[in-house]
């Protein structure tokens, strides 16, 4: 076994590459995913071997995984080559494909779907685990967020060599990260609290006062080492770093604060890291503005209630908004979450509703008293608006479809 294993890994990596190349060239799909799947099937221990050879950072949370991973990758590239699944393929096969693609890279930054963190972390034994936030996501597909928190907590308790960099303004994240042998707490700003008014430990009520929160059972907000304050990040050493990102919104500043703390842990000075973060202008097409003949359209992705809340905050005032909603497998078939999002914020704007499940959104907007009209085709929806800027917000498959159809998108 011990003699044969390295050879077997190399052979199965080669087989995986071949499949990846085949699937890319035949247009079957995203090569990274299929290639990783084949490798894992041929050699279940491949991830362990490929991961343990280097310094691995895992990034997880409900929202911001891709963005934060890209930020960390940019920062760590100042040290050495970095393997990363920057295409957002965050299941075990995508993670493996990223490691396979850059076998010599001494660092790896891997975003991992929350539900796969226990397994992936056990395989690769990460140096750092970044925990961004936890809130409800596609309820019909993934288990409830509290179960996810419990599993993360149990996994973290077993990762004795891992530093957990965690957002202490998020109650569920704090509960999970409290199990860490070493935690670095980052105050990234309070966000969505819809899933944490009841304590994850005792179901009691969590009392909140400005940034502080606590529960009667003893679960309480730890004192942060790093604090995001407006556009500034204060470091544990008392230094201030001006973020000045090119990505919009408070949510991306929160991602940046966590990325700076994690990069610092691996030896990248905060100012150096921040400079690298400023080179990022879009995340896989998100936040990118594309020009059409009469319109400039800013593309935004929102995948779950917390993501929608953040995205609605980022929208330019007085700019018409096209909102596209699908309910494919990858989006979650259940659209109940529409009622957890404060769409009332869209009142007074020009709003066009589109996507395969535009009718559901339309009912939600009617009850939110947001005047709007419906146009089944998203591109026609854009073209029907007066010339000028357009904000386009879409959920996962609606976004992917649109990026595929809009030239330059």
């Amino acid at each position, binding site marked *: 076994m011990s003699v044969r294993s390295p050879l077997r890994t190399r052979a199965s990596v080669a087989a995986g590459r071949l499949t990846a190349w085949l699937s890319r060239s035949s247009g079957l799909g995203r090569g990274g995913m299929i290639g990783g799947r084949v490798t894992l099937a041929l050699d279940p221990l491949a991830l362990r071997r490929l991961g343990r050879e280097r310094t691995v950072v895992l990034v997880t949370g409900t929202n911001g995984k891709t963005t934060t991973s890209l930020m960390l990758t940019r920062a760590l590239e100042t040290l050495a080559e970095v393997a990363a699944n920057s295409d957002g393929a965050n299941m075990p096969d995508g993670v493996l494909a990223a490691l396979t693609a850059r076998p010599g890279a001494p660092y790896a930054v891997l975003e991992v779907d929350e539900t796969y963190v226990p397994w992936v972390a056990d395989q690769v034994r990460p140096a750092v685990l970044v925990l961004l936030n936890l809130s409800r996501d596609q309820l019909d597909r993934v288990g409830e967020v509290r179960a996810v928190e419990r599993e993360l907590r149990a996994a973290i308790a077993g990762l004795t060599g891992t530093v957990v960099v965690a957002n202490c303004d998020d109650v569920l994240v704090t509960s999970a990260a409290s199990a860490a042998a070493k935690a670095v707490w980052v105050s990234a700003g309070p966000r969505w609290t819809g899933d944490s008014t009841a304590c994850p430990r005792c*179901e*009691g009520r969590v009392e909140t006062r400005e940034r502080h929160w606590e529960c009667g059972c003893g679960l309480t907000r730890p004192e942060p080492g790093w604090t995001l304050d407006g556009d500034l990040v204060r470091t544990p050493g008392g230094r201030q770093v001006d973020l000045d990102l090119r990505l919009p919104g408070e949510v991306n500043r929160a991602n940046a604060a966590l990325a700076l703390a994690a990069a610092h842990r691996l030896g990248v000075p905060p100012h150096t890291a921040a400079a690298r973060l400023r080179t990022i202008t879009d995340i896989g097409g998100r936040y990118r503005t594309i020009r059409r003949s009469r319109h400039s359209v800013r593309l935004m992705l929102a995948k779950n209630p917390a993501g929608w809340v953040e995205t609605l905050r980022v929208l330019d005032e007085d700019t018409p908004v096209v909102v596209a909603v699908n309910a494919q497998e990858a989006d979650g078939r259940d659209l*109940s979450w529409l009622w957890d999002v404060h769409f009332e914020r869209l009142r007074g704007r020009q709003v066009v509703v589109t996507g395969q499940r535009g009718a559901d959104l339309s009912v939600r907007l009617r009850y939110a008293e947001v005047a709007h009209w419906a146009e089944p085709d998203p591109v026609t929806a854009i073209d029907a608006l007066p010339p000028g800027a357009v904000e386009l917000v879409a959920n996962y498959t609606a976004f992917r479809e649109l990026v595929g159809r809009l030239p330059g998108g």
Partner: protein
Amino acid sequence: MGDSLVHIGLLLPEVLGTYGDTGNAQVLAKRLQWRGFDAEVVPVGLGDPVPSTLDLYLLGGGEDGAQVLAAAHLRRYPGLRRAAAAGAVVFGVCAGLQVLGTRFRGLDGVDHDGLGLLDVTTEPGEQRAVAELVATPPRLLDGEALTGFENHLGVSKLGAGSEPLGRVVRGTGNGDGTEGAVTDRVVGTYLHGPALARNPALADLLLAWTIGHPLSPLPLTEVERLRGERLAVPRRRR
């Protein structure tokens, strides 16, 4: 009740609010306001006594542990049972339906007392029902089909004291071909989340009971379009 204020109680939203359940309160309030009634949503939190003075009570969906906690809270504070005995309207969704029943069994195999407002007992089934649910035609709703989404493991049995809300056309519902339960003015259903947004006839039935007389029609083109779309969807392959 006429021109007075209608109080809509939203019970324990922090534990019974998994599936956009506040949407039902919002739908009821808007359907009253758009017809000239005053309406107010009153959230009742964990740790707060449950008032018996509200006109209509809503219970949403929740996880296993949260559901046990909610049932304990509602047994400890008798406000909801008192109000129901006095004729208040009660609407429970998913975990809410189970809590309104006489007894439900948790995943740990432990039986918990419900409130006994519905003659329903619930046990965990073998596989989770996660799908679009269509039920028709409920006796109370003039043949308007019920449409919604379900996501639950529970299998519910009705006793003689409750009748089903509808018969399942697509999906699982209670598990024996029926869907939901009704006793007097207490209604439970597995149509979760914004069930009342998709089923305006059910919303208006609850409101008519609350007000004491039928309400004027309120046609909403958006709702008609959504119902048309959802009821036309062919059965999904499993």
